[in-house]
């Protein structure tokens, strides 16, 4: 079992997701079986990462994990992309979903992702599986913006990464978010991608 049993009823979390401000999102703590996720973290660290830099971001990323050769990651990918799990996320987010993509990301000291809305053909729900824990002072927090007149104005929610939390948010014209700069030597490890419609 990959999932923590307490999360087995998605309808329980649907209202929390739909009513969240500033836009539909939810942070599900201790979502996976802890010991299994620890193994995923170990496999994650052994992956090859490529540094990426643009006006908008600086971080290191793996290739799409669909093609990973690692046994553990392969299993996790298989679970996460299964019809059953996609149906579960569809219910929780009240959004019709078909498939996923997934990459590993490492944010080291000075890495960041600046405000953007994630919109791209087919992306419906963005997700983050947090594989490390950072304190507020370490940076690396997922931050959500309030939007006025279709422009992002200010950060109104800030979520420092918690190991074994699953973050979901709806991709819309107003889903502006960023990842604050990592300020310490701790690393922000995540498996991230989108559920596509």
């Amino acid at each position, binding site marked *: 079992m990959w999932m923590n049993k307490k999360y087995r009823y998605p309808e329980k979390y649907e209202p929390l997701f739909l009513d969240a401000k500033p836009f539909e999102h939810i942070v599900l703590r201790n979502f996976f079986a802890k010991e299994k996720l620890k193994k995923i973290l170990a496999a994650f660290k052994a992956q090859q990462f490529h540094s990426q830099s643009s006006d908008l971001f600086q971080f290191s990323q793996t290739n799409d994990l669909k093609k990973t050769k690692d046994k553990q990651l392969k299993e996790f990918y298989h679970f996460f992309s299964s019809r059953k799990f996609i149906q579960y996320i569809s219910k929780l987010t009240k959004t019709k979903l078909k498939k996923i993509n997934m990459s590993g990301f490492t944010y080291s000291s000075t890495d960041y992702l*600046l405000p953007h809305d994630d919109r791209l053909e087919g992306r419906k729900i963005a997700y983050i599986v947090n594989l490390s824990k950072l304190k507020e002072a370490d940076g690396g927090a997922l931050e959500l913006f309030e939007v006025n007149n279709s422009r992002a104005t200010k950060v109104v929610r800030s979520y420092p990464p918690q190991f074994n939390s699953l973050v979901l948010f709806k991709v819309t014209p107003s889903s502006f978010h960023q990842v604050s*700069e990592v*300020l310490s030597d701790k690393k922000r490890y995540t498996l991230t991608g989108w559920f596509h419609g």
Partner: protein
Amino acid sequence: MVDLRNLLADEYLDKETIKAAAVTFAKSNPPNIQLKNILRQDKFNQFAEKLNALGWEKKYVPETGCYDHALIPLGLSDFLHSEEFKMLISFITHKTIHQTRAELCSFGHRDYTLLYDELRDSGIFFQLEFTSQWDQNWGGYTSFTQDEEMLRIVPSSNTLVLVDCKNMKHFTKYICHKAGQHKRILVEGLLK
């Protein structure tokens, strides 16, 4: 009227220097030049001192950028809008310059600008740099892109940068915490 002899370093009052600059500009891809030690040292110091005393205001539009800006002090503004300055730029770039659009900016930790769809530069982009010491590992450099990076300008004190920004966009790289209290202070804008 502005007398360039009171403003520009002696080297740049020499026609041969300007001719050579025009050749360098035209031969570069994208057309650009960095004119080091452009202002007379006493004038530069005088302007730099004025910049320290200004009231800066934060300009924060998350999707496009975050930095401080202030009104350009009078002496400096007169110079940048003068016919003499526009003539000098025309000589170097072989473009007729009618107007100067300039903004005085200060970039510190957490500041940045982003590329965005409506961002369309045309004309001669310029930067007059007042930053004394900079390490590009802090970010804060100006990157000119056309899908990929075509030109990177790392701050260098008392330097006038000219770039023909046709078909390019530019951004200022996010400044990370390694910059500490250092600020990049410059006047930048478009000459059209």
